[in-house]
């Protein structure tokens, strides 16, 4: 160690904060606040406004407020989910390969779910 030509400053560089922590913290709370409204609204609206049959749910989803609310719930929920699971991965998965693969999957899966759900809501809302 004492024979290294690198200076202590050079060795310390890059080991600090990534400067993303506060943004993560605030985004987690902001999405949480919106979800305290969106999730109970969605559950009660579907449970009370439909009987679960295809025709009644299609009719419900064709209302602009319901389609927009469902899309907002999916986007906000998946964003919140990605932030939360990211912390779980960073806490428990220490191997560099497993951690990188898990973090990439934690970006890909919410993105796939979000696009699939939004396109589906749009198709029902617009569609025949």
């Amino acid at each position, binding site marked *: *160690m*004492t024979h*290294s030509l690198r200076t*202590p400053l050079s*060795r*310390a560089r890059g*080991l600090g904060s990534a400067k993303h922590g506060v943004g993560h913290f605030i985004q987690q*709370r902001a999405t*949480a*606040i919106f*979800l*305290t409204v969106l*999730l*109970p609204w969605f*559950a*009660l609206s579907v*449970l*009370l406004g439909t009987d*679960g049959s*295809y025709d009644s*749910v*299609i009719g419900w*989803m064709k209302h602009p407020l319901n389609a927009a609310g*469902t899309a907002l719930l*999916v986007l906000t*929920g*998946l964003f919140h*989910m990605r932030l*939360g*699971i990211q912390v*779980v991965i960073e806490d428990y998965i*220490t*191997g*560099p390969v497993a951690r990188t693969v898990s973090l990439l999957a934690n970006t890909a*899966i*919410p993105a796939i*779910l979000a696009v*699939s*759900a939004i*396109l*589906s*809501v749009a*198709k*029902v809302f617009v*569609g025949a």
Partner: protein
Amino acid sequence: MSQAGYLGMSMAGPQAHDKRPLSPHLQVWRWHVTMATSIFHRASGVALYLGAMVLTAWVMALASGPEAYGAYMAFLMSPLCLLILFGITTAACYHLANGIRHLAWDAGKGFDPKVSTATGWATIIAGAVGAVLVFALAFLA
């Protein structure tokens, strides 16, 4: 160990080398309700990953037409799926209730040990009661 040596180790990934205990270190802590609610919050959040998939598949089935929707709903109504759905619903109700508790903490309220113990029990009860209410609305109303 010299400071330089420690920094060199950090670059290789400190967590792979350190033998220090991880918080909250389940083997040495006596279980108490505020610790349990913290662990349940994380566990229910992970469980809701499956919930997000179930919800997305439901919207996709709806967009795919009456046959796909009917087949998916029949699948969801199988005994095993109903059990899993009840678990997801419990996780959602609990995570919502305890999430509000966390937001209150973020605002600096409710840190008193007596208050946080009481609100901890309240969130556990809210999770169970909420799930039963949702299932009652879904199947009885």
